[in-house]
């Protein structure tokens, strides 16, 4: 990898607003006059420089929460599912709410990496790495829930098709079994995709690492990457193939998760709209989570030039789009319930929206997912990281409430009024939920500390320097392109 600028300080640059669309021109995706070297440096510095105090504080907090998680799981396993508030009729509650919540969050990473890759959305390069990491860790958090929520955890392996002396096989009609495959396949492919994409960057870290441990560890992890053309060729092929493999999984995993509900008989669950609705919701929530992670990260790790306002703007637009799909789905559900003429379905939506004991959760969901994201129509708000951070958080909360609404309000009042009952959580399941954020952030902060959080190799490939044509003088390219993009006053106005 050639170094084009040896001295970045020699470049004079001014602020560029790359969030503006200029017809016929490509917006730059890396700002700050970065060249290849400085991109490498700014990313690897996060790993190779001593960690800032803030990291230790953050990690400490996350780890403490993780210990809360461990404690709650200990109590759960040694005492029984009864430490939670689940009951009859609400047999699933925080466990499956959080499972779906985390799986949903785990969606955006692979979507960004795979689908946007296949669609040649170059802006993905700055965010795909940690979005994928987010996916993996979210799937870890998600996957633990169904494993831990079963009554006899020590037998949860019966969900897997393992030949056994009991001559018993899982029951293939059960959507829970489909879930096992959907989530485990998704986790496997996402992990592979993440790791394969990271190999060139791990090699960079290996090369730049001064510490012996780092050299050995990154050396092993980078699988002998030398950067030869052959390696690049194999890498590109593998990456493309994995992207192609991962793409259907983005759609399948949440569709299958939604089958848990859609194939059941329960009013409020038994709906054909659930798969697309869940996928859209997952993308919505996933992007919200990427924003929640990216906005502070770009600030704290000095990645503003790589994760630019344009990136944030794009993500905000996707949130707006998917948020509206989700809102549309909410309305469709209600319409179909009315249109179906099925009494039980209609009653359920009356409970949800009008007067049930959890009607407030429905309106919390509507507020967070249908109303608040409408603010993203306003460009000014999209370009304000503070506002964006707030809206993304609200969207995440809203998506949690969505799962609460789907699961708890459907279960707490179904067919026979004699079996209606209320549900409320215990401190242990709340602790486990908060603790799962501890697990997530523990993993995420470890990732930030020890792995390249931006895909350097890929970012470089979308920088203008990577597209110099033969015979063009290297030196002028950057300045030229930058000044090319500089919008005139007229453009700024709209």
């Amino acid at each position, binding site marked *: 990898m050639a170094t084009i600028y040896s001295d970045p300080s020699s470049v004079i640059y001014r602020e560029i607003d790359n969030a503006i669309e200029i017809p016929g021109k490509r917006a730059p995706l890396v700002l700050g006059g970065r060249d290849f070297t400085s991109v490498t440096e700014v990313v690897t510095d996060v790993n190779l420089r001593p960690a800032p105090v803030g990291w230790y504080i953050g990690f400490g907090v996350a780890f403490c929460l993780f210990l809360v998680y461990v404690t709650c799981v200990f109590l759960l396993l*040694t005492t029984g599912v009864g430490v939670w508030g689940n009951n009859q009729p609400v047999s699933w509650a925080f466990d499956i709410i959080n499972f779906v919540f985390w799986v949903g969050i785990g969606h955006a990473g692979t979507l960004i990496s795979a689908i946007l890759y296949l669609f040649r959305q170059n802006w993905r390069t700055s965010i795909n790495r940690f979005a994928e990491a987010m996916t993996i860790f979210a799937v870890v958090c998600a996957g633990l829930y169904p494993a831990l*929520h079963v009554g006899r955890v020590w037998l949860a392996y019966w969900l897997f098709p393992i030949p056994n002396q009991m001559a018993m096989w899982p029951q293939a009609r059960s959507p829970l079994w489909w879930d096992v495959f959907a989530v485990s396949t998704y986790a496997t492919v996402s992990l592979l995709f993440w790791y394969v994409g990271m190999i060139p960057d791990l090699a960079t870290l290996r090369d730049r690492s001064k510490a012996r441990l780092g050299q050995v560890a990154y050396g092993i992890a980078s699988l002998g990457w030398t950067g030869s053309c052959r390696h690049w060729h194999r890498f590109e092929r593998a990456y493309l193939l994995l992207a192609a493999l991962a793409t259907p999984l983005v759609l399948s995993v949440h569709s299958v998760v939604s089958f848990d509900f859609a194939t*059941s008989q329960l009013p409020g669950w038994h709906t054909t709209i659930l798969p697309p609705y869940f996928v859209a919701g997952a993308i919505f929530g996933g992007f919200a989570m990427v924003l929640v992670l990216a906005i502070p990260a770009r600030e704290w790790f000095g990645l503003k030039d790589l994760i630019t306002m344009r990136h944030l703007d794009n993500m905000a637009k996707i949130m707006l789009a998917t948020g509206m799909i989700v809102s549309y789905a909410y309305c469709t559900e209600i319409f179909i319930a009315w249109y179906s003429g099925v009494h039980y379905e209609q009653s359920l939506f009356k409970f949800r929206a009008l007067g*049930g004991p959890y009607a407030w959760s429905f309106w919390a969901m509507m507020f967070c997912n249908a109303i608040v994201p409408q603010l993203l129509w306003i460009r000014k708000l999209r370009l304000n990281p503070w506002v964006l951070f707030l809206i993304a958080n609200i969207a995440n909360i809203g998506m949690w409430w969505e799962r609460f609404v789907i699961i708890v309000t459907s279960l707490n009042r179904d067919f026979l009024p004699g079996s209606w009952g209320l549900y409320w959580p215990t401190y242990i399941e709340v602790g486990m939920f908060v603790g799962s954020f501890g697990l997530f952030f523990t993993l995420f902060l470890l990732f930030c500390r020890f792995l390249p959080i931006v895909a350097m190799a890929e970012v470089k490939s979308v920088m203008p320097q990577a597209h110099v044509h033969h015979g063009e003088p290297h030196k002028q390219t950057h300045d030229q392109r930058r000044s090319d993009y500089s919008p005139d006053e007229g453009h700024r106005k709209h």
Partner: protein
Amino acid sequence: MNDQNQTGRSYWQSLNELANTPAVRAAIENEFASYDPNEMLKGSGTNQSRRKFLQLAGASMALAGITLTGCRRWPKENVVEQTSRPQGRIPGVPEQYASAFELGGYAQPLLVSSYDGRPIKIEGNPLHPQVATFGGKLGASSVLAQASLLEMYDPERSRAIVHRNVVDQGQAASATDFAAAISQQTKKSGKIAILTEATSSPTTRDALSRFVAANKGAKVYEYEAISRDNHYVADKQAFGQPVRQVYDLSKADFIVSFDADLLGTHPYAIRHSNDWAQKRKSADTTKTMNRMYVLESMYSTTGTVADERFPTTIRFIEQMVLQLAHKAGLESAQDKLNSDQTAFVEKIWNDLAKAEGKAIVAGGHHLRADVLGIINAINEKLRSFGNTITFRAEPDRATHIEQMRALVDSINTGNVDTLIILGGNPVYDAPTDLNFGGALGNLRGRGVSVHLSVYDNETSAACQWHVNRAHYLESWGDSEAWDGTICIQQPLIRPLFDGFTPASLLSAISGETVASVLKVTEDAARELTLDQAVLYRTWAGKLNDPFVANNPNFRKALHDGFVGAGAPVTVKAVRKPTVSFPAAGGEFEVRFVADYTMYDGRFANNGWLQELPDPVTKIAWDNAALISYNDAQDLGVTQDDNTTDLIELVVGGKKITIAAYIMPGQPSGVITLPLGYGRKRAGAIVLTENPGSIGYNIGFDTYSIRATGAEWVAYCPMPVKTGDRYSIATTQTHHIIEPVGMAIREERVGEESKGGKIVHESTLQAFVKNPHAPHKKAHVLKELQLFPSPSSSHSKNGGPAAFSDPHAWGMAMDMNACIGCNACVVACQSENNIPIVGKDQVIRNREMHWLRIDRYFKSGAPDYAGKIADENPQVTYQPITCVHCENAPCEQVCPVAATVHDSEGLNTMIYNRCIGTRYCANNCPYKIRKFNYLDYHSKHPREGHYPWLGIPDTQQKYEVDKVHALVFNPDVTVRMRGVMEKCTYCVQRIKHATIDRRNEWIDGKRDKPTVDDFDVITACQQACPTEAIVFGDLNDPNSLVRRQHEGPRAYQVLQELNNRPRTHHLAKLRNPVDEPKAAVKEEVH
């Protein structure tokens, strides 16, 4: 020469072989030629060995680890054989013995199942006319009788004789020490008093009279908190002799209940219920039903099934009695009644006037004796006596209150120095103004008090001696049933903790032994116990046969469980009393009632009963002051799902703080206080008070404000809200649901004309006009199935085509007969080892009952705010248990195939396959699957749950009390935490019956391999007093269940889901007075 040559071998392949050297021989002997068992130990360091080691190590790791079972330590179990098998006993086959359970002085005939020597299930004695159902094929039993089994295995039962020199400090004493001390005391004392609980036992009475004869000056007193003394007094006055009335509801077309809980707490309730139900089921055949009018001051189970119910205060009920007497021409008209009340009485009289000899007018035992006398006069006028009402003799005695007062007086005046209390718990339940506890304190300084009791309870703690009483299942006894038969109480097991019966204690105090009682040799006496000997002595006298044990009549009585009743007593004409009404003592009437589950409080330590929801209020683990909605509004009392307000009541100067519970159907102006809660020493183990025990301080002690003269009805000023909240557990969502929920529930539960979907009901009049009135078939979309559904056609004999080989099990639940009494719920709990979970878990909606009785209120008022205010909603009970869908939603979603269908239509649950995803419960539209959220069997219901660090599978082995574990039915798995469970249609009973019948068929003793009706009886069907539950084979065209399924009232709950339930419900019919709707509405307000 070697051996080889001797055998003459001539074919060989190697010289070594031919030479047959020792080395070769050794090699031949070695089974696996290349295998060296010591290879591993040699440590030769060769490559070969190391590689092999790694191979083996790897393989063992894989084998041990791959299914995670390799390092699992299975619990060690020992099987101990019986050293000698009793003749005729087949191990593992339960045997049934007739016995009896005495409650409040009246016997309840029982049939007790014994499994390898331990009683595990209590049922009604089908031979006994009082409890026989299905024409004597089955026997019903009350909730209390069934649950008394758990009491027998209560680890907190008293286990020893305790001597308390100082109050509350006891030490265990031996029986000989006790006998020595007490016989010395009785010999020197001339002032002995015996206080016994009400008993009709000939043996106990015989023992008492012998004791009195032997100890000059000894006096016997009887006290029972739940006493029917007002009836006793009224009947004695009316007929001039002590009698009790036996109602025959099977002959009564019209039943008028003035606050009498005929189907609920009455000692004869099972017979009443069954007779009443027969007159409801007749709707299908003769198109007629009886009509029951209930005027009541609270919602009782009898009121819930009334055709015409009128809630009002007790004072008005009594005046309405007089108004009815006026209609009958016996009294002058009551001017105090309002138009509704007169109209209602008018309505009753319209029916009664034409029902001579076919009516019963009953009064509650809390009504004043003179009012009950008027009811007697009305019955005489209606010619009920001799037709629908017969009489049985009662012993001549003073009332319980008078006797208690006399006893307390004589203790306090020093006329008693030795007090022997046989059973009961007077310190807790005697009228508070008599201060029985104080009297015992007075006695302590100068005399001796002895208390015989199953539990070391409040009274025991106040006496010097506590003697542990043998449980009735462990001891011999007898008692008289309401209908006059004498039941024999036969022990099923040697006493777990020894103990005396009242009769054997008196005998022991008198220094008697088995030999002296029966006048036999010591050798012969060794075979017998003292309680048995005392019983033999009594029956030897009764049957005039000294060798009663071999007397054929006695043996028959023992086998049948009872001796037939003699002829009923005939009575003279009624002497009608004159009634006067004293002024009311306060703004509110306070009514004390026996609790449906705790009775008078003696069952406080019984977890099954504590957790059993009250049939009407559905409160578990508590009692509460039941108040009407309007009164609650006035008091500002509110309640939400789990909490309610505490109120303060002042009755006769005594104050009580109690939770208020807003009860629909409760008349304004009456506060109902169930007795039997707030026990302070309900289940203490021997010497220590144990606040953690099941019954300790649960609910509110309403005895604390119950005084003489106001044992049943008292007055109080307006109660005051304390401002504190109290958490209360109910098994159904409180009736206060927001308007949206109410509207939706209305649609589901309403009558067919109002779009009822789940509960179908109608009136007899509509049903007669159109048999399909109660319901219409639901609209089912059968083609929209994710998975192929079982064949919907019928097999050639009319049974279902799917899951019908060789039987097709099905059930019918008749909502027209269900009175919500909970007998089925306890039967199921007892049969199927269902755990109790505790109040905190009930609040969490985690009760484990496989069978629940959904109770719906219904009233005609259109607006929902007014609906609550309506004081007279009707009740519909819908018993629900797993309906065994042919097209079961639960089965399709279980990822590990833990719930599957069998060939006979059972939706089976395989506990050891279940991993507890709970998906099945979510997908069950009836929400009747129950999940073991915690290890409820190991968890004490009053304590929290704790982490278990051992192997989860073995928790029960170590944690369940060894005594308590004896109650488990060995035919049914005791479920651990983390598995789903639900009704199995009593698959263990099905298997017992089908295997036996099939074997009989193989042996040529039967003409078909399948079962007949009543070969398989589920526990719930067995217990049901009204025959509301029927189980059987749908393949059999003549089976009762098949006929019920094909009857006009049968329908499938949630048929529209195409689940195809095997349990069908039978629509409810009411038989209100046929009159224009508007008039009905008028009368309600």
